[in-house]
């Protein structure tokens, strides 16, 4: 039987894809066709809804195609397709568990397509997808929904921040976390918030609030999600920012390729794209850096938060979190305490039972303790802990690693609160620099050098060192009492700037070649130009300084101080008598210096120079007998917190690494080499794998001998003139870029 011939039009019309194409080309003429398909879609939907779980594959496929068609042209017939979104929403929310995976994916895709065509707004899309994300048991659907939600939020925030939408979603997430604190559903709030934080779409306090609630949840997973966000979210954000600017396009290469390659539309498009990207990167480079606060700084009521966290997850004996997770929570609590200088007195006694060498991951506990210490923590709270560490960890009998970790952690604590130490204990600990193990020696020396700077009186005289002794004598080294803050009066390092300016001016004058007299005159003139009588200003500010009276405060404080301060008082009372003249001189100088800030307006350039000078001065101070590690420590930002590595590190100092470690270290960051091969061979195989061709030289080398032998013979027979001609021609050609004139 011969096949019936199908007319061209009819054949094409029986295809939904081509119908879609036609509708989009000419929506008015095909309204009738669309309406037909809309009815078919409606009937198919009815069929599906009447028995969602037992729909046949045939029906599913038909429905799938019709949903696809309607979604693609829904924006053209808004009247007819008005209920379409509700249909899809109902379908997905009620039947997502039994829907065929393909159909389900299509429905989700259609919803986001509607969003892209602006048929629905983001809020309605997200409020549809979000409840399903939390409730569905299907992993594939969850990942699909998650990506759709994230991408939609990104899209709608791409041009300008969509505050309204963000607020809605943040409220939804907040409710999700707070409504049922025992369920794992809060994980999704954590994931979404973290992702958007990483992409810098959400940068304000509200997402931090969501995460804060997550931290206070009852579910371990959710708590860990929240805690990890605060501990690592900002770092992740920075890394993401670095990554995005990594891929560089070589503009020269692109332009060159444009000149030598065959000109096709595809290539042209690629070039345009590359140029666009470069432009974008340029723009990004010159754009002002977004001022993003770290999540830890955006927390509302950190004191209450830290207290709640501590009470709920650490102090509470009913809390059954694993040790690792407890440590994470502890890290966050201590980080908050250190950063915001919070006071949680019950935290310090809690530490006591964990500070033994047998405690698993004790170094993390030690690091946390150091983190939790700041200058507002009463020394009475920490002193017993320090003594406990000294007793448990530091003894001749204990292992070298243990002892060094103990001393090191004591040093970290003392760095933040020097008053936590008694004289005898310190002297005992410092004596460990006579130990045999290098790690212990380093740790003890670190402690000693710290106290030389902050509180040299506590050290024995022979350990004080030259600078500290001299500083003590001159009164330069001044111990801060408990509760006392080092307040900067005026602008830090302004004297450096003034000095620098003076130098610059002198240099300029010297260049002009004027004599010394003129120089002096000009100096005077300059002062007059400023329009101030400097003498008057000095007197005035002198008066004000004497009335500020923070020396008086010091004296009043002295009575409240504990016995730790008693010894100090003798020194401080003696010192002013001895060095009163010097003190007067320094005070006078300080007043004179502050003039610069009053007489001139500092430009941004001045401020930049000031920062630079300050850094230099600090470095100058540090160079000399200050170790590299110490420099690192100073350079390290206070916000970074203390990690277990900081405590463990000195124990590694004296140790020889094994051969495997050294080999691994050498291999680190180098390309893999499985077999013994020459570098050339490796490069060649790499090139081949990348699909690049060989060079002309290589081709010439590979050429069949018989093909080259004729030319070689002919070369022997050439005349001298001929040879010369060839040689000169060769040189000329290579200068002008080869036969193809590539350079031209």
């Amino acid at each position, binding site marked *: 039987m011969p096949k019936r011939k199908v007319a061209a*039009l*009819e054949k094409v*019309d*029986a*295809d*939904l894809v081509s*119908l879609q194409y036609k509708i989009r080309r000419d929506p*008015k*003429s*095909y*309204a*009738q*066709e669309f*309406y*037909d*398909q809309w*009815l*078919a879609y*409606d*009937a*198919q939907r*009815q*069929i599906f*809804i*009447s*028995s969602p779980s*037992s729909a*046949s594959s*045939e*029906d599913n496929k*038909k429905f799938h195609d019709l949903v696809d068609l309607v979604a693609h042209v829904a924006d053209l*017939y808004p*009247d*007819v397709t008005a209920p379409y979104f509700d249909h899809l929403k109902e379908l997905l929310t009620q039947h997502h568990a039994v829907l065929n995976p393909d159909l389900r994916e299509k429905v989700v895709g259609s919803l986001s397509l509607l969003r892209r065509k602006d048929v629905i707004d983001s809020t309605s899309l997200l409020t549809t997808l979000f409840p399903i994300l939390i409730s569905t048991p299907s992993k594939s659907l969850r990942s699909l929904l998650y990506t759709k939600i994230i991408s939609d939020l990104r899209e709608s925030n791409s041009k300008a921040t969509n505050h309204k939408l963000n607020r809605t979603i943040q409220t939804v997430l907040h409710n999700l976390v707070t409504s049922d604190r025992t369920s794992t559903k809060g994980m999704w709030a954590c994931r979404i918030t973290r992702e958007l934080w990483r992409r810098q779409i959400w940068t304000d306090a509200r997402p931090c609030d969501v995460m804060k609630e997550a931290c206070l949840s009852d579910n371990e997973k959710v708590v860990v999600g929240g805690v990890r966000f605060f501990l690592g979210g900002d770092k992740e954000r920075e890394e993401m920012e670095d990554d995005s600017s990594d891929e560089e396009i070589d503009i020269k290469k692109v332009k060159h390729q444009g000149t030598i390659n065959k000109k096709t539309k595809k290539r042209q498009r690629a070039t345009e794209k590359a140029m666009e990207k470069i432009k974008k990167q340029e723009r990004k480079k010159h754009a002002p850096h977004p001022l993003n606060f770290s999540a830890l700084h955006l927390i509302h009521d950190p004191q209450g938060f830290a207290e709640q966290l501590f009470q709920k997850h650490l102090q509470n004996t009913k809390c059954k979190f694993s040790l690792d997770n407890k440590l994470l929570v502890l890290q966050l609590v201590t980080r908050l305490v250190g950063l915001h200088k919070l006071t949680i007195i019950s935290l310090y006694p809690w530490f006591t039972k964990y500070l033994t060498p047998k405690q698993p991951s004790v170094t993390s506990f030690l690091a946390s303790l150091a983190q939790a210490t700041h200058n507002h923590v009463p020394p009475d709270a920490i002193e017993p802990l320090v003594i406990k560490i000294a007793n448990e960890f530091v003894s001749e009998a204990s292992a070298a690693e243990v002892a060094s970790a103990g001393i090191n952690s004591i040093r970290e604590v003392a760095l933040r609160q020097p008053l936590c130490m008694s004289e005898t204990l310190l002297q005992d600990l410092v004596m460990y620099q006579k130990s045999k193990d290098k790690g212990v020696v380093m740790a003890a020396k670190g402690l000693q050098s710290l106290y030389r700077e902050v509180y040299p009186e506590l050290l024995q005289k022979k350990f004080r060192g030259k600078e500290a002794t001299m500083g003590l004598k001159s009164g330069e080294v001044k111990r801060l009492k408990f509760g006392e803050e080092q307040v900067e009066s005026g602008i830090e390092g302004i004297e450096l700037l003034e000095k620098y300016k003076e130098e610059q001016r002198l240099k300029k004058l010297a260049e002009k070649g004027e004599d010394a007299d003129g120089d002096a005159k000009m100096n005077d003139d300059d002062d007059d130009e400023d329009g101030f009588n400097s003498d008057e200003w000095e007197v005035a500010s002198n008066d004000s300084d004497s009335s500020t009276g923070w020396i008086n405060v010091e004296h009043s404080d002295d009575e409240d101080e504990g016995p730790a301060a008693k010894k100090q008082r003798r020194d401080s009372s003696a010192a002013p008598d001895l060095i009163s003249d010097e003190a007067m001189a320094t005070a006078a100088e300080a007043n004179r210096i502050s003039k610069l800030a009053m007489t001139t307006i500092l430009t941004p350039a001045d401020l930049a120079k000031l920062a630079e000078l300050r850094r230099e001065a600090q470095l100058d101070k540090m160079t000399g007998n200050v170790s590299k590690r110490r420099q690192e420590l100073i350079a390290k930002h206070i916000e970074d917190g203390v990690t277990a590595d900081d405590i463990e590190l000195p124990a590694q100092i004296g140790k020889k690494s094994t051969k495997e470690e050294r080999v691994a270290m050498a291999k680190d960051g180098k390309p893999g080499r499985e077999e013994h091969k020459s570098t050339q061979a490796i490069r060649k195989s790499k090139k081949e794998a990348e699909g690049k061709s060989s060079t002309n030289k290589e081709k010439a080398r590979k050429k069949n001998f018989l093909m080259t032998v004729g030319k070689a013979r002919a070369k022997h027979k050439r005349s001298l003139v001929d040879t010369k001609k060839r040689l000169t021609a060769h040189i000329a050609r290579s200068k002008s870029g080869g036969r193809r004139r590539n350079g031209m």
Partner: protein
Amino acid sequence: MGSSNKKKKEKKKDFNKAKLKVGKAKAKAANFTDTSFKSKSIVVNQHTLAALDGVDLVGLFKQHLNQAINSKSDKLRQEALVQLTKDLSSKPIFNPVGVPNLLTKLLPLITDSVANVRTNFLKLLRALPPSDVAPHVEKILMYIRGGMTHLSTEIRSDTLSVLDWLIDVCPDETVSCPGGWLKTLNSFSSMLGWNPSVASTLSVKGWTSATKTSLNKVSKKNGEAQAKQITILAKFLEAGFRPETPLPYDEQRYWDSIYRMPTTPNPFAYLNLWGAQRDQDGEMYPDRISRQQVFERKWRAAIKTGVMGAKQEGGVIGRAASVLDKVLRTTEEGAKKVVEEQEKVEEVEEVEA
């Protein structure tokens, strides 16, 4: 140079006599087929080779059922349907899976892409006992509506045949089931291009009101199809407007209806206690009056204008349209009465209120 020499040689080669050499095999002919290959498996085109004697009939029926839906080959589907029809029309009826299962499985075949499969499916439907079909009318109608607006005109026309059968078998259920009245009318009007709602979406303000696009072109074949559509629409409307004959009073039945368990499935369907909420289109119109009311409100004007146009075309379409017109006329009087009565009732209610 080289290439042209080569080409010359190649051209000549065909006319050179091949030299046979001693000790060498003869050159292979151009159309030589190499049969020296070995294969590990043989693919057979038939699905079953075994003789069918002594196979259990239930299994065979189920196999046919599966083949009718799942088989890729249209021949196989068609043959399976023929077998099923044979089983169903045998005396006594052999149907081990039951009508509901049979229908749920086979109904997607209404829109099968092959014409023979569709006609055989219709034959199968005709073989079903009408009493068993009645509870599933709603479902069948859904598939029919899906097919009525299908892209392919042939499928549309074959679907109409199915609707024709359904009206023959159970007319009351067809027009009174949920969505059976208005939604089917929707599909009809869309099919015929008489839809006022589409025209409003078009919002074309031109000198012509014709919205006839490629699918509704009046060709000879299309004309016949349209005539069929109009005829079946007339039949459908007739079924909808058929006056209900009141049942003679039967005491036993009266008390049964109050105290006995109902014998029909879902006797309180009109309350829609468990299903999703229905809109106006999807609502069920169980009696003639409600059907007529909603028809007056929504469709009479549109269909009337459509009929006028079709009548003017004459030929097959015109004849079909005049039949439809007759149906409309006969109901118009009744409809007016009904509407008036309704208005009166409303007035009385208002007065009472």
